[in-house]
C-alpha cells in the first residue's frame, strides 16, 4: 500500500449517503452521479477535488443507505483516502471492496481545508505536512490491506477463483 497524499477537504460529523449520492440522481450512471456528490454541502466539491485529495471527517461518515455509489462517487472523483473518527459500517465495507482507502482516526488532528496531508495506511499514520504534525490511526487488519493492495474485492476474488481452478483440492 503506497503513501497517499493530497489536499485536505474537511467535513463534519454524519456525512450521510444522501449527501454523497443524492437519491434524485440515483438512476444515472456513476459518470453523471459523481458530479452531484456532496453538492448540498459544497456545490463546487466535485469540480474542485483532484486525484489523491484526502477527505477528513468526523463521526459516522457514510451513515444511511447501502448504496455503493456513495463510495464509488468519491473514488471516481479521485479521492485518495477518507479519514474519519468513525464510519458507518456498510460505507466502510463498500469503500474497501471498491479499493477506496479508508482510515479510522480517533485522535484529534488539527487540519485546515487545503493543507497538504499524507496517509500511510499500512503504518496507520496521518500526517499534516503543512502544519508539521501527525496522528495515529487504528491499524487495519492485514486481510483488508491485502484487499486494498489487490485493488478491491473483485480483482482479489478473481485471482482466488483462478487459483482455485488451477489447484482443485
Amino acid at each position, binding site marked *: 500500500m503506497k503513501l497517499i497524499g493530497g489536499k485536505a477537504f474537511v467535513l463534519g460529523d454524519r456525512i450521510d449517503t444522501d449527501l454523497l449520492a443524492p437519491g*434524485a440522481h*440515483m438512476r444515472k450512471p456513476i459518470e453523471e452521479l459523481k458530479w452531484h456528490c456532496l453538492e448540498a454541502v459544497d456545490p463546487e466539491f466535485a469540480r474542485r477535488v483532484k486525484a489523491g485529495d484526502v477527505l477528513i471527517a468526523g463521526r459516522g461518515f457514510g451513515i444511511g443507505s447501502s448504496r*455503493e455509489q456513495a463510495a464509488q462517487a468519491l473514488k471516481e472523483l479521485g479521492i485518495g483516502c477518507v479519514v474519519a473518527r468513525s464510519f458507518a459500517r456498510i460505507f466502510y465495507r463498500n469503500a474497501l471492496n471498491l479499493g477506496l482507502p479508508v482510515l479510522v482516526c480517533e485522535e484529534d488532528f488539527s487540519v485546515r481545508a487545503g493543507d497538504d496531508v499524507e496517509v500511510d495506511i499500512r503504518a496507520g499514520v496521518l500526517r499534516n505536512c503543512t502544519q508539521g504534525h501527525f496522528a495515529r490511526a487504528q491499524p487495519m487488519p492485514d486481510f483488508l490491506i491485502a484487499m486494498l493492495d489487490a485493488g478491491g474485492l473483485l480483482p482479489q476474488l478473481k485471482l482466488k477463483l483462478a487459483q482455485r481452478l488451477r489447484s482443485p483440492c
Partner: protein
Amino acid sequence: MSAQTPAQTLAQKLVARAAGVATVADDQIVTCRVDLAMMHDSGGPRRVDSKLRFLGAGIWDPDRVVVVSDHFVPAVDLDSAQILQFTRAWVAEHGIKHFYDMRGICHVVLPEHGHLAPGMFVVGGDSHSPTGGAWGAFMVGIGATEMAGVLVTGEIWIRVPRTLRVLLNGQFMDGVAAKDVLLHLCATLGMENEYRVIEFAGSLLPSLPMPERMTLCNMTAELGAKTGLIAPDEVTYAALRAVGRDLTPEPHWRSDPDAAVEQSCIVDVAQLPPQVAAPHSPANAAPVHAHGKVAIDQAYIGACTGAKLADLHMAARVLKGRKVHPRTRLLVAPASARTMMQASRDGTLTTLTEAGAIVLPSGCGACAGMGAGVLAAKEVCIASTARNFQGRMGAKDSLVYLGSPYTVAASAIEGMLADPRPFLS
C-alpha cells in the same frame, strides 16, 4: 452444551452457527455461510451484473437468492422502466425463482412470503436489512460489490458484533408506538453504534406484535448498528405459522442468561410521549411538543419503516371521521401489495381516503426520493419513514420531520406538527 462452553449472546450464537463453529468471541473476524441473499432493483441486478461478468462466475445457489423490485416501481420515467426491465430479464437468465416484481418493499415482502426464520444468516442489499432481526435471523445490509462476492461464493467475512441490550419495560400509552422508541434511542444513544447489535428485550416485548418488532429492528440502521435482534418467542412462531412456516420453537435462539453484553439500557416506555425528529437527522428527536408550531405541506405514510398494515391501522384510528387540513396533502403508500389488499378488505383504505388521503403504489417511493411524492424547495413534510437526511425526499432545502403513523396522521389533520393522543381519547 457442556459446562465449559462460554455463555453466548444471541448475536454470537447466530454468527457461530453460520461460521460453522461452536462459539465466537466479540470482535473476532469469521467467515459465514449465507443462508439467503436478498437484493432489490436499485442495488441488485443492474449493479451486480457487470461484476459477475468480470468474475466470470455464476450464482452459488439461485434458490438462496431473493430479488425484489421495490425502488423504481412503478416506472415513472424511461430510466426506471429500463432498470425494471433489466431486473426481470436478469432473474430469468439466472434462474432465480424468488422474484417479487412490484409486490412491495423488500423488508416486508421477505417475511410475508416466509423467507425468514429464526437461526438464519441473511444478507440484504439494503441498509434496512436489520428488519429481519425481528424474526430471530441475523440479517445485515451490504453493498453491491460485496453482494457480487456473496453471489459467487455464498460466503462473507464478518466481525463478531458486541451486543447493546435495550430493555423496553412497561406498556405504551395510547398513541405511542415502536417508532417513537427508536426516535428516542436515536437521540439518546446517537447514530454511531458501529459494530454493535442492538438486542431488544424487556416486559414490552411479549405483547409486541411482529410489525412493531420489525419497526424496532428496522431503525437500528439509524443507530448505526450492524443489525437489530429480538429472540424468537410465541409471537414469532405464530406469525411464522401465518405465512406457512410451521416451525418447532428452538430455545437455543436467545442470549444465555449470563452472556456478557457491552452495554444495557432501559427505556420506561410507559413514560414515553410521541417523538418527532427534526431535519436533517433522526437523532434530532424530541417529544412532539418540543418542536413548537411547524406548518406541514405534506404528510407521508410509507416505507418499510412505517406503512405496514399495523402502521395503516394506527393512522386510520386517528383519521376516522376526520379530514386532512386544507393546507396539507396526506400521501399513503402501503408497504406491500398484500398490505394494500388487507387494508382494502378491512376498510382501512376507506377510512384513510374518506379523510382525504391519496393512496400511492407500494414501493420505496418518496422515502428514497425516487418515486411519487417527492418534495419541492422549502416544502415541509412529516413522514413515518426512517430517515430525514438533507435532500433525501427531494429538494436540497426541503425539510423532513419523522414521526410515528399516529403522529403523521394527527399532523395531517392539524396542518402542523401535532400530538396524536388527543385524537384517540
